[in-house]
Structures are given as structure tokens and as C-alpha cells.
């Protein structure tokens, strides 16, 4: 399993009820179901991925976050709402984050850091929109329509009164390195945030 997924896995309590937004082929949910007796659903729009989930025994719902929203889910009906590598691809990341914390007591989000030093270097050196292994698309047909930096994300969390419970940064191979922890916004390639609503802690 990818390192980011194994980090997420450590943050999820056994028996939790989990919603995975953009669950892909259901690898994480499948693992959580088997190893941690987790229940829950994945949302996905990729047809092949949906079929793979069904073949795996992962409960998957065909639902588009952008066009259908999450209005069909009840308030605080999940322990954890996950979204790995999809925040940058939705139309309104801020609203999706709001919704995540309406449905779940806790949200776990991963996304690529646009302030990663290689991307900064690419932009400065070439003067063109960065392309990399994590961001392999041309600017005009990329699914990643809302790229942000760790600082941007944390500013949004502050604005919305989200509390950041944990933050981990990993590199493109999803490895956890001491030096990326040192200066995450410059050296971290992918961030994993665990957030909750501020009020909850009061």
C-alpha cells in the first residue's frame, strides 16, 4: 500500500464508519474493512474503478461531487470522511471541505503541494506551468483545476475554523522524510492533513 495510505490508516480507529470521496479502486477501503473492521462507502465516478470496487467487495456509489454534491448524506453520519488526491480536482474545494466536516467528525485530506521546491524551480527557470510526475498534465487539460500550497490550505482552514489535528508530508513516492518535515511548504510534495471543526474541541 502507498505510504500516504498507510499513514491515513494509522489515523483511523478500528470499527469506524468511513466515507471515501473519490475512492478509486477501493484499495484503502478494502484494507480498512479487512484489517480494521471499518464500514462505509466509497464515492467514485470512474466507471472502471466502480466495477473494480464492486468486484473487491467495497461498497461504492456512483456520485459526482461537483454536480451532485453530498446533500444525500446526513449530518455527522460518519466517523471519518476521506479524500485522497482529489481536493485539487473539484470545483469548490472549500465547499467540499465544509461538507466533509458536516458529514464526518473528522476529515482526512491529501493533495499535492504547489509550492514544492521543484515546481517553484520549474516555474522560475522555464516560466511555464510546472509539469512533474505528480502533476503530469498540460495546463489546458488538467483535472487539477484548484492547485494550492500547504500555506494556502492552512489559511483556508483558519478562515473556516477547521482545526488541523495532524499534518504529515511525504515525497512523490509517498515516503516520509525528515527533511520535508523541516520545511514542508518548500520541501514537501504531498500533504496529508487530518482536520476537524474547531467548535468540537471547545
Amino acid at each position, binding site marked *: 500500500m502507498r505510504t500516504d495510505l498507510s499513514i491515513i490508516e494509522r489515523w483511523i480507529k478500528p470499527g469506524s*464508519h468511513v466515507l471515501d470521496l473519490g475512492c478509486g479502486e477501493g484499495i484503502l477501503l478494502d484494507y480498512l474493512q479487512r484489517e480494521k473492521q471499518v*464500514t462505509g*462507502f466509497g464515492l467514485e465516478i470512474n*466507471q472502471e474503478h*466502480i*466495477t*473494480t*470496487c*464492486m*468486484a*473487491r*467487495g*467495497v*461498497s*461504492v*456509489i*456512483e*456520485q459526482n461531487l461537483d454536480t451532485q454534491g453530498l446533500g*444525500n*448524506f*446526513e449530518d455527522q*453520519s460518519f466517523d471519518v470522511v476521506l479524500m485522497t488526491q482529489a481536493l485539487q480536482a473539484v470545483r469548490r474545494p472549500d465547499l467540499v471541505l465544509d461538507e466533509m466536516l458536516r458529514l464526518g467528525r473528522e476529515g482526512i485530506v491529501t493533495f499535492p503541494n504547489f509550492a514544492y521546491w521543484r515546481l517553484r524551480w520549474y516555474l522560475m527557470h522555464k516560466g511555464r506551468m510546472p509539469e512533474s510526475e505528480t502533476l503530469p498534465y498540460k495546463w489546458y487539460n488538467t483535472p487539477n483545476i484548484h492547485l494550492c500550497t500547504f500555506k494556502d490550505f492552512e489559511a483556508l482552514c483558519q478562515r473556516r475554523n477547521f482545526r488541523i489535528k495532524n499534518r504529515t508530508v511525504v515525497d512523490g513516492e509517498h515516503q516520509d522524510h525528515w527533511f520535508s518535515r523541516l520545511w514542508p511548504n518548500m520541501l514537501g510534495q504531498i500533504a496529508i492533513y487530518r482536520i476537524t471543526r474547531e467548535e468540537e474541541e471547545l
Partner: protein
Amino acid sequence: MPDSLPPDSVGVVTPETLHFNAPIKLTCGQALPAFDLVVETYGTLNSDASNAILICHALSGDHHAAGYHSMTDRKPGWWDSCIGPGKPIDTSRFFVVSLNNLGGCNGSTGPCSINPETGKAYGPDFPVITVQDWVQSQALLADRLGIDCWAAVVGGSLGGMQALQWSLSYPDRLRHAVVIASTPRLTAQNIAFNEVARKAIISDPEFHGGRYYDTHVIPQQGLMLARMVGHITYLSDASMGEKFGRELREQAYKFGYDAEFQVESYLRYQGERFSESFDANTYLLMTRALDYFDPAYEFDNDLAKAFGQARCEFLVLSFSTDWRFTPKRSEELVNAMIAARCRVSYAEIDAPWGHDAFLIPTPRYTDIFTSYLDRVGREVSA
């Protein structure tokens, strides 16, 4: 008729009539003293009876879901596209059971059967049957076949309602419910279409209050009309448009009221054929069963509360152009299941054929159906 049987056909099959000698109490309060169910089975039941799949038919279906009754049959069973060796419901792994429901007109006890009390056909005296009653009778059938727990109960449309009802009536007797192109309850518009169909039948002068068997006539015009109106709701505007457009049977308008457009003659042909083979009282009964189905009713109209009873896992499928039971209706089901924390998977399949799409294999439909049931098979080591 096939010259030779395709390798993925279940081949030539023979229905069997099973007699049930104990009275069955029905939702309406009445009871049937005894009843028959006509059944077809495909494949082999394994030693622990864990590989059985129940097929529930829709309004006009019957027990003949797959294969041929003889080598001279023009067409195979109604769901032959999905049932057979290597097909989504793989008969080389599963033991598949398909029956004609109670109240039907293809051999199971129904309005055209003889009422033991009078020695005449039941006709209008046959009690109104509900989806719950069907499921109850199917559970008795399962007992008879030695099946404690179905690997899956599968159905489209009205058949999907039976699969849903199974999950509520006998939560521990099925592992999976596959609910295709179905709905948690009919809308006013759905009931309205059923009412038009019933009114067409009942107002046919040959209906004789449902006792037409005694006079050896059938309300053919009424049944034909009922089927014509029903048939329109099974197709989509686009699929009808593609099939017929405004095509005329002959070159020019004739300025009369005979069937001039191709679509008219198609509907008349479908209606006529249907009216020759289906029983009008059964049609009334089936449409009423549709109208009454409403599992939330007993749970304060809270569908999620109803699904609180369910223990099985669900696969719900809808079709993009189905306007009889739209994807929205399936989503209602799914949302209630999510709220009840049932295990459920859902997909909306893009298909142009309206409600009938559940009978027509398309790549995505077949892939999903095959993958899901493959896992069901692995679970029960089939």
C-alpha cells in the same frame, strides 16, 4: 429457433410444478388453501446449498427466464441474455431458481386456476396478491428446495421490489439483493398509468366483471390497450424515435385512422400478441401489486428505518433513460440504505432503451453484473 444451442445457453429446460398443500395467509387477510408454483432451475445446487440465486420476474414475466423449452422455440427465456454458463448469472457456478409468481397465468395458481370451493376459475375472486405475499411463497419454495439462504435474490423492476422485500421479510435468508431498474414505491404518475391499463381491461365488454372464462371469451381489446400504454412507458422517446421515427407503412398519408405510422402498427402488434398469451385478471393483479408496494409504509414512511431490518448486501442499478423508474428513484433507495448503514453499491448505467434496458446487455451493465456476482460466487465458494 436455434439450429444448434449456443454454448452459453442453459439449453433445453423443462419447467416443474410444485404443489404446496398448506394454506398461505395473504396480506389482504384472505388465505389460499393450497397452491402451485411453476419453477425452472438451471445449474446444480452445491452440497451446502449456498450457491442458489433466486430470479424474480417483473409484470409480464414468468418462470421461463433462460434456455429453450424445445428446439422449435422461436425465442429463449426472457432473461437469457444474463443467465447461462459464462453469463453474469453464471449457471456453471450458481443454482438458479426462477418461478412464475402466485397470481400469474403461466401455471402457478392464479385467477385462471380452478377455485376448489366452486369448481370454476377464480376470476375476480382470486385474492389481491402483494409483493410480501410473493416473497412469502418464494420462502416456502426455498424451504422445499432445501435452500436456507440465497447467495443472491435478483430482479428488475417489479422483480427488484421482490428482492428488496426479501431483505426486509427474511433478512437472514439472503446474502445479496440485486435490485435493477426498480423503485421504493410507485409515484402518482406510475399509478396513473396502471389505472389507465386497468380501466382499459375492466371497461372491455368482454371482461364480464372478470368472469370471462365462463363465457369462453377474453377481454382482448382491453388487454391490448393496457399493454400498448404499458409498452410506451418501457421505452424511451429516443429509442422509439430511433426505431420508428415518423416512418409510415406506406408512402403517403391516407387521411384515415388506421395504423399508418410504423410505431402504431408496432404497438398494435405487441398489444395483440400479448393479449393472446396473457391473462387480463393477472394483469390487474400484477399492476395492483406494483401500486401497493411501499416498504416504508410500516415504518412511519421512513425508508431508512425499513432498511434497518436488512442484513444483506445490496447492488442497485438504474438506467439513464428509464423514465418509468428513473435513476432518482434508485438513488432514493440507495440513500435510505446509506442512512441505515447497509452495505450498498450503486451505478447508473448509460443506456438508450428506457426501462427495458434492464433486459438488454450493454458492456457496462454486463461488466458490473458479472464482477459483482463473481464476488458473490467467491464468497460462497461457487
